[in-house]
């Protein structure tokens, strides 16, 4: 398993906060900031993000964002690409290669959750050309008119995508998004410290008391409440308040044993041996393995969610043409393989595995067996369900 050094992952970040956080990440250990979990610090100075966004040069505008359907393939490609992404979720080598091939200047900004991305775009944050929402967030944003309609003629490499990942419920015709990669939400534990073999959500909840203070959970309501739901055999997407209430009660019962509710810190905490059991996203635990070889990722027996992250373009993107060019360019098996090398998440493009480090490509927690995949559920992003979860989440946090 290859684990890059911190400095390798240094990125160009316009927002001052991002820069600080990056430096922190570099200083703090072998692994950079969590892939999907950028320090929530961005919240402290949200203005920084907006300012950074505002101060960007708008650049040539070849097509009206709202009417791309006319889709002239000759539309002028802009010379700037502003990416708004999860932290450590785009291989710097990929970015450099694209920048060089198209003579583009790229900038990076980070968000920590889909909800944050939605909130920022809905709040009017401009200047971003490319975002990476999870499926359910695509649906919410598309319904809200926050996404740019893609011109499939300009994305011929869509043909490379495994048909399983096209036409998913959140975007049935892929009008707004192209699959970036996919993964699962489960938990990882350090076998050096945990005596039992953990295989289920039931294990996750029932061992919390024994390993009190060594637990972490994500700072994200659908995933964590989903764990409680799955433990009882309920659907990840239930809208039954009683079922959600039961899941929240289970979480409150183990809250005193949880060291931290965090989407950004758990990798470092596990790497140092401060946390032993963490609810998180599969790829993240591969970073931990460099320091804690005994780390094991579990897709719980009761089932869990799989998520598909996508590339999409905000409706107000100043440089939509180059963004579409990027989406097309990145959908080749070679570029996808390099992405998986860096993010440890499975690509949705057929044949990408051959271009990935074989240790990663053959790992069942990254590329699970088909029968395991079949048992997984996707977060459908029903607004009512999400609302129910965020209410339960506030209750959990206030408990």
């Amino acid at each position, binding site marked *: 398993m290859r684990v890059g050094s911190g400095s390798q992952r240094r990125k160009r970040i316009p927002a001052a906060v991002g820069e600080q956080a990056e430096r922190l990440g570099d200083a703090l250990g072998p692994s950079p900031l969590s892939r999907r979990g950028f320090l929530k*610090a961005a919240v402290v100075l949200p203005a920084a993000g907006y300012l950074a966004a505002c101060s960007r040069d708008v650049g040539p505008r070849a097509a009206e964002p709202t009417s791309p359907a006319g889709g002239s393939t000759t539309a002028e490609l802009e010379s700037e690409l502003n990416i708004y992404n999860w932290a450590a979720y785009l291989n710097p080598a990929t970015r450099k290669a694209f920048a060089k091939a198209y003579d583009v200047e790229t900038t990076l900004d980070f968000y920590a959750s889909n909800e944050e991305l939605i909130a920022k775009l809905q709040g009017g944050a401009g200047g971003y050309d490319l975002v990476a929402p999870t499926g359910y967030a695509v649906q919410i944003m598309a319904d809200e008119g926050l996404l740019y309609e893609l011109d499939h003629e300009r994305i011929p490499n869509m043909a490379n995508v495994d048909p399983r990942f096209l036409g998913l419920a959140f975007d049935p015709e892929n009008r707004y998004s192209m699959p970036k990669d996919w993964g699962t939400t489960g938990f990882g534990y350090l076998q050096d410290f945990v005596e039992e073999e953990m295989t289920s959500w039931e294990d996750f909840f029932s061992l919390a008391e024994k390993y009190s203070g060594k637990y972490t959970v994500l700072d994200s309501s659908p995933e964590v409440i989903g764990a409680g739901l799955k433990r009882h055999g309920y659907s990840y997407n239930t809208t039954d308040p009683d079922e959600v209430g039961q899941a929240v009660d289970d979480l409150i019962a183990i809250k005193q044993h949880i060291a931290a509710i965090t989407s950004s810190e758990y990798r470092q905490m596990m790497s140092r041996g401060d946390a032993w059991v963490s609810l998180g996203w599969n790829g993240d635990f591969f970073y931990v393995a460099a320091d804690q070889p005994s780390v094991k990722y579990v897709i719980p027996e009761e089932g869990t969610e799989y998520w598909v992250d996508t590339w999409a373009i905000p409706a107000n993107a100043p440089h939509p043409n180059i963004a579409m060019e990027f989406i097309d360019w990145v959908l080749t098996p070679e570029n996808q393989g390099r992405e998986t090398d860096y993010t440890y998440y499975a690509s949705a493009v057929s044949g990408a595995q051959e271009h990935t480090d074989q240790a990663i490509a053959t790992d069942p927690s990254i590329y699970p067996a088909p029968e395991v995949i079949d048992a997984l559920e996707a977060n459908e992003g029903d607004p009512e369900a999400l609302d129910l979860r*965020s209410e339960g*989440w506030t209750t959990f946090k206030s408990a």
Partner: protein
Amino acid sequence: MRTRERDRVVAEPVWLIGPAWVYDLVLLAAPLLIVVAYAFADRDGFFTITFGLYGDNLRRLWDPVYLRIYRDTFLSAAAATAACLAVGLPLAYWLATRVRRHRTLLLLLVIVPFWTSILIRTYAWALLLRPRGPLYQVSHALGIVEQPLNVLGTWKAVVIGLVYDYLPLMVFPLYVALERLDRSLVDAAKDLGANRVRAFLRATMPVAMPGVVTGCLLVFIPMTGEYVVPTFLGGGKGRWFGPIVADQFLEALNYPFGAAMSLVLVVALLVVIAAYLRAFRGRPGGLDAAL
């Protein structure tokens, strides 16, 4: 005589106050009004917000679950403020009365941490306080503790972080107040038979009180809205107002409820501060001297 003197004073151009007014209106009053508007708005689904006079958000806050957040935030902030005072007062006293040489340098050292981002300083504490972190290793080697520290992710870590982060805001008002202390007052108190404790309480403290009042306010108010410390040092799981209200905006996408929470905090703070200032009004060096 007095009137004639006043006449001679050059009338200052009134418009000079303009920028301050514009600043207050645009950056303070207007945003507050937006918060108020959202607090009384109705939310139906993620993005459908109807402005009006709806009380649902405020009613929901009446739930004990949320009331506890306010209670705990206020109590913790008060405890951290008291701890700040306990550390800051001796330091300020020492700086103002005992240090003769290098005083400027020492004062500078109090501010130097402010030059580093609060994020980095707070994060540094998270590393120090780890169960088997540097603090544990040192104190373990010295035989002070046996078990790995159980501080990070608890209220103890939050208080430590808050005291550290806000100490300069406490020390400076205290220092400014104590610098005015006339040593002869203390000497006189002693001459008149007061022991050291009594002399401190009766001669020194009245002079220090404006600093105490100001320092406590400067520290307490921002603490109630603190985000970084409870998130990093408290493990993001304590009942602290800041992170929970941030969640309403960024995770729950519930602006009206988040606005209602903020509004109630503002009102609660006004009540607490009014009561606090009232308690000190009329005392030597009370409200008037403080503000």
